[in-house]
Every structure is written in structure tokens, then in C-alpha cells.
């Protein structure tokens, strides 16, 4: 048998861009990797020796990484055309050459580094929080919650804001107002919270405005690429019903 710990050579095609206003270009690299190597570990190796296949020494590739356990969301990029976290993309499972591009729909900062601040701004737009009186103890027991309700909420609470769903969404783009799937799923989560539901109408009105829920084109790309398998389209469906009810309340009155 071949020893799984012997390195083998892989090829990387990386789309590079020196700054937000410059033109992108491509660099090709070949480097030895070991079994279990992933896209981030290969990029880390490359930093110490960034030499292209034609022998040119180039600047190290800029990219983002932190937890390396697919829970912080930092390292999402386009890998062989698919948006996904790079730390859990094992090279052994990828077709060679491996093509790396920055996560689309977000402005490129440099190379594979993008600016996802719009995602975070959209969390503000939909008021994705529970309003509490203050960070002190109110000496009241947590409300009871069935395990079933807990499990349904937990799915949405695992969103790590990696932006993969936004990158895959045909409706979300820099010059369009659509808020995107991840913030919508947070509305679903906050509206189900025992006290978060007090602000349900405010959140629903936020997603009933321009760039809200009705901009979803139901392509279902989001749910296909979510690395945490969050049922984003289910959330969007539930919000559709919630906004319908809200609309009737707005028209005919009622709490």
C-alpha cells in the first residue's frame, strides 16, 4: 500500500487581485501536500514559498482563516466554482487542478479576501437580536421550551455568517437591495424566541420593505450550499406565512 503520509503534488489555480480597484489575474502553483490537507493548510504552506509553476516568486496569497473547524465562517471562498469554507475542503476530495476564487457578491479586498460587512449590516437591517433591558441578572428562571422547539431553533442558531448562501443566491448582489438568505433565517429564529417575538412585527416590516422577502426568487441555491445544512428555504417559507398574516393585521388591525 502507499503510505498515506507521503506527500503528493497538487495544482492550485488562484484568482488574484492586488486591491479593490485593480484587475484580477491568475497564478498557478504546484505544491506537495499530505493526506488530510485542506485548502487552508495548502494556502498556509504556500505563504512560506509562493513560487508559481513557471518559477516566478510572487507575493503570498491573502486569505482569511481563523478557527479551522468550520465554525467561525472566516475562510469561505469559491472552490472549484462552489462557495464553501476552505478549512473543511479536503484536497483529496477535489478535482485537480483546484481553482480558488474569492467569495462572489462581496467586494474583493485583496486576492481571496473579501469584505462581508454588507452581511453584518443586513443583520442590523432586520434587527436580528432580542431586546433585553440590560446585561444584568433579572433573577427569573429561563422559560420552558420543548425539546422539539429547541431543536427547530437550534438549526438556525448554527449560522456562522460565512456568506456562502449569499454568494450562491442569484438575487443577492452588490448593486441590488435583496437582504439575502442568512439574515432572513435569523428573523425566523428571533421571531420564535419567547421574548424575541415581541418585536416580530418590526422585523417582519423590515423584510416586507424593498429588498426583503419578496425579492427571493426561490432558486434554492442557498440551502444547497449551506455548510451547516440550515433549512434556509424552510425559514423563507415560514416567513412568507408570517408576513402574510402581518399584512392582514396591518390592513385590518390587531396585535
Amino acid at each position, binding site marked *: 500500500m502507499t503510505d498515506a503520509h507521503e506527500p503528493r503534488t497538487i495544482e492550485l489555480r488562484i484568482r488574484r487581485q492586488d486591491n479593490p480597484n485593480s484587475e484580477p489575474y491568475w497564478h498557478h502553483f504546484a505544491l506537495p501536500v499530505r493526506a488530510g490537507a485542506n485548502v487552508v493548510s495548502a494556502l498556509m504552506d504556500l505563504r512560506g514559498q509562493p513560487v508559481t509553476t513557471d518559477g516566478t516568486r510572487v507575493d503570498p496569497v491573502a486569505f482569511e*482563516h481563523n478557527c479551522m*473547524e468550520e465554525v467561525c*465562517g472566516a475562510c469561505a471562498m469559491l472552490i472549484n466554482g462552489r462557495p464553501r469554507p476552505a478549512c473543511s475542503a*479536503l484536497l483529496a476530495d477535489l478535482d485537480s487542478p483546484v481553482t480558488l476564487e474569492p467569495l462572489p457578491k462581496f467586494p474583493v479586498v*485583496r486576492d481571496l479576501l473579501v469584505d462581508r460587512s454588507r452581511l453584518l449590516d443586513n443583520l442590523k437591517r432586520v434587527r*436580528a437580536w432580542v431586546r433585553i433591558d440590560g*446585561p444584568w441578572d433579572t433573577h427569573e428562571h429561563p422559560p*420552558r421550551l420543548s425539546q422539539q422547539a429547541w431543536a427547530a431553533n437550534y438549526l438556525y442558531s448554527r449560522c456562522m455568517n460565512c456568506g456562502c448562501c449569499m454568494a450562491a443566491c442569484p438575487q443577492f448582489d452588490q448593486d441590488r437591495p435583496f437582504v439575502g438568505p442568512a439574515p432572513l433565517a435569523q428573523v425566523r429564529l*428571533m421571531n420564535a424566541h419567547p421574548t424575541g417575538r415581541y418585536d416580530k412585527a418590526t422585523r417582519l416590516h423590515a423584510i416586507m420593505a424593498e429588498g426583503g422577502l419578496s425579492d427571493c426568487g426561490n432558486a434554492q441555491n442557498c440551502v444547497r450550499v449551506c455548510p451547516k445544512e440550515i433549512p434556509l428555504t424552510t425559514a423563507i417559507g415560514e416567513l412568507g406565512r408570517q408576513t402574510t398574516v402581518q399584512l392582514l393585521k396591518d390592513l385590518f388591525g390587531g396585535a
Partner: protein
Amino acid sequence: MMNRGREVIVIGGGLGGLWATLTIAEAGHRVRLFSLFEVMRSHSVCAQGGINAVFDAKGEHDSVRQHIVDTIKGGSYLANQPPIQSMCEDAPGLIRTFERMGVTFSRTPEGQLDQRLFGGVKHRRTCFAGASTGQQLLHGVDQQVRRLEADDRVHKHEWWEFLSLVKDADGVCRGIVAMDLRSLEVRAFRADAVVLATGGLGQIYAPKTTCSTNSTGAAASRVYQQGARFANAEFFQFHPTAMLGEDKTRLMSEAARGEGGRIWVPRDPADRREPARIPEAERFYFLEDWYPAYGNTVPRDIASRAIWKVTRELGQGVGGSDRVYLDLTHLDRGFVASRLGAILSIYRKFAGSDPLQAPMEIFPAAHYAMGGLWVDYEKDTSTGGMRPGSPRNHATSIPGLYACGECDYAYHGANRLGANSLLSASYSGRVAGEAVVSYLNGLATGAEAMPAEYFDAEIRYQAQINQHFMHARGDQNPYHLHQALGALMTAKVGVVRNNAELDAAIAELAELEQRFARLDLAEANAWANQSLAHARQVFDMVKLAQVMAASARARDECRGAHYKPEFALEMPPDKYAGDPEFEAYRARWKANNAEWLKTTVAEYSTDSPRISFEPVDLSLLQPEQPRDYR
């Protein structure tokens, strides 16, 4: 008079930093929150297991007193006891507050908070949110901070790196200098108080660490080099079972051993057969051999040392390398799948192989720094705990600078109890925030009165360092220097220590520092230059590694995670309290405490760290009983 509307800077947006931000902003002060990246990506998200808080809801007669005792003993008595008391008392209130923020803690069938058992204790005391507790907690506080940000009460500076403090003529902290990680602009920010919440430093052992790649300790090192005292740097927890990786090593929960996993190596390290083809007789189950009573379920520190001995001292690692097998293949598949599903999926995802088919390959990994920036507290003599709201709580030795979270040293002594890290990070963030509010109330003049020249001088100095790093044309690559640091610290300031190797490490670290004079960044791009930021971090990591090595060298004993076999006190086998052999051992143990039960304090000086010691407050529980796992 309330002194509202002051400016505070918080550096770091993990649990500690966000709790501090929330507390200070809710009190009416403006907070600038600095982070290397979007705060929700901080290392707090990695904690999977849970957070300790006594609710005594499992019919086990748990008590806050028992949580305090477990924390003190888990830390081998090295932590001051009043802060531990206050933390344990406040833990249930923290859980309730997280719930109000929207954290979805797991529930019992009755819909109440569920609690699970964690290592080192006898009571089910750990609250959890599925298998991602840290992420849930961090996101809960992150959402609250975003709420305040939307109201303009918090201003975030994400993608900024803290470089240094700015102090006035009296040594009081009056602001910081930071670098925009995109434009590389170096800028000063005035502040009436600064909170450092920059996390751990596991990257000093890279790649053999479970820590995130931004857990470098560089920020703590920078304030240490500006005069902040650093305590108990020799105490670093190594987790015995981390799956291997070139980039980092990933934690495999100790549940794998608890549920029947066996650790072994081939008797012949040159054996190249697939593990399944190696017959039982040719396997060395060294934990079962060496610790027949506990076998594979020995405590974390003992397991780490045994794996270290097999690989590094006996040269018996798999293929002669830093690997041993953690084997689940003999267990019932259905049982493993139901009990260890999370472990199986992590291993499959990141190693690309199935632990049900072939044993996992593991090695100990640097996991958590018990040591950190020295912080003060004010004891409340009426309760025995910390006085709530005292401006001394979590104050570093630099006036106006506070520290909380993993970058402080306060709660864990010589070793940390499982599921106490999310607790101490959250609790200390809140306490530091309250302390800052009190400090501001007593502040006569704010940073606005500081002459601009103090700030301008520090900007010039930091910009000069950048220029030097950018334009040096030597032969030393910063990424390779980081690798050299990690290998050196893993080999010589790691799981097992001895003074000859520590002396060698201290010499090698001095040499490593010198290599920065011959740096070559190999990158001239003045936009988002990650090599520059990394090189500066690695330099400061080397300075902190020197503190760790010097502190380890100074402590000639075994305590908690710090293990020097030369000074080990062996418990007499089969002897118990009352037996003369055991009582003689107890006397030696007490004599050792009389000499070594003290906090190590390091202070910066240009040649090498100055080490001194200070007493520990033992007012709640005196050390009478040695740890006994028999």
C-alpha cells in the same frame, strides 16, 4: 457625580471583550471595539462542550460551594480564591442572562435547562447548547453589541490590529496605537480606559494547537513589553487527544476514551502495516499497561504525558513520528454512532477517513493558557468574594488598562476545569466592564487633555517598525520563523519539562529573536499585507515565549499542567490516609506547597524577563488533601 459619556477602547471581540463592551456601553459610555476580524469569528466559537453553573437540578445535591472547591482543586490551589468564589456564585445569573439574549440552551424533556457531566467533577453542572455552546454564547452577546452599534453606542473597528498603548507622564494608559490591516495606516485613538480581551496564545505551539490561527498572544505580549505584569506563564493545558493536521490539530473530545476508545501504538515503530492488520500481540496499549486501574480513562494531564513519553522519549510513535492510535473499531458501531456522533463527523470531515474503519491518529495539543496578564481584585471581607464594582477588579498593573478572558490569569490556577473557560471569559468580561465604569467615575481628567505629542510619538515609533519590517532584505521568512517557534516550544516548553532543555529553549529563543534582524517579508504590497502583520505578531510571540520558558525554568516542582519529572512527588501505592507512608507523603506535599504555592510574576526588562513570586489568597480552602485519583 456620575461621569458619563467617557471614551473606552475594548480590544478583542470574543466572549470577554463583548461582555465588557456591553457592560460599559449600557452604563452610558462610548466604546470603540477593535478586532483583527469580524468579532463573531473569535475563538470563543470553538468551545463545544458547555459552561458550568450550579442549578442543582439533577437530584445530586450540587452546590456553589462544590463548584468553588472543584475549581480551586482543579487548579492545584494556585488561583486566588475570592475571584473564584464570585465567579461561581454569579454563574447561574450569567446563564439566565444568556437565555434572555436568545441563546438556545439544550432542554430536558420538561423544557428546563439541561445539564451534563464534565471531566474532573462528580455533578452534572454543565449547561450546553447542542454541540456548539461557544458559538451560541458568542453570537448571543454579538447580537446585543450589534443592537448597541445600531444605536451608535458602540463603534466597531474590525480589521484593525492593536500595536501599543499610549501612556501619560504618570504611566496611566490614555489610548492606543493601532494599524488598519487593509490600508496599513497607523493611527492613535484616545481613550479614558482600555480593556484587553485578546484571548489565548496557543499559536506559540503551532501547528500542534487546538487554538484558532489568530490566538497568538501578540497583544498581551505588547502590553507586557510596555510594563504590564504577566503571571503564571508556565501553566498551559495540553489536551491529550487532538487529531493531527498540518494547519492545526483539532480537539477530539475525551468522550472517545470515556466510551471505550483504546490508545495504542505498534510494538515495532517501523511496522508499516495498516493498523487493522496488526495482531493484538503486536500492539502496545501503553495506558492500560502503565495505569491498570484507570487504563484509557486516566485524567487529561496523565494521558498527555504518557503519549509524550511513548513518542518523544521511547521513539515508539506510529511510524516513529508524533502519532498514536485512538481506536474505536472494536466497539459496536451502533453504540459508537449514537454516543460519539459529533466526534465521528469531525474526524470524517477533517481527516477524510472513518474512525469506524481505522483508528484515529492523535497527539497532545496546546489547548488553553491558564497564565496571562496579572490582574488585581478587591476582596470583600464581608463575603469572602470580590467586591462588586471595585475599580481594582481585573485592573492590570498599568493604571487605566484592564484585562479579561483567556488573556488574564485569574481563575484557573495551575490547570483549568472543563467548561470553566466559557464561564470565566463571560464573567470576567462583565466584571472588567463594571470595574472600568467605576474607574471612569473616579477619573479627574480624561484622555482629551493629553497633549497630541504623546500620540504622535507613538505613531512614529510604530510606523518605523513597519518600515523596518517592510524593507528588511535578509533571509528569514516570517512564516518559517513561526514554524521554528512552534517546534521549539512544543519540544522544550511543552507537556514534559526539564531544566536542561528549558535552559536550551531560553538560549534558542534569544537566537530566534535575533533572526528578526535578518527578516525578509518578501512582499512589498502596501495594501492588506498579511506578512507584515504576521511578522510583527511572531516577533511578539517570541517575546512571550521567553516569559513562558523563564517562568517554567523558575518553578522547580510539578503542579497542574506544569510537569518536571525531576521534582515529582510520588504517592505511595496502596497506602491511604493514616498509613505512615501516606502521612510522610502528605508532609512532603505540604512542605512543597509551603515552598511553591505562589504566583509567578514576570516583568519585562530588555535582556530577559524578571521573575518574582507573590502569595496566593487561600482564605476559602487550605490545601490539606493531595489529589488522589485512586
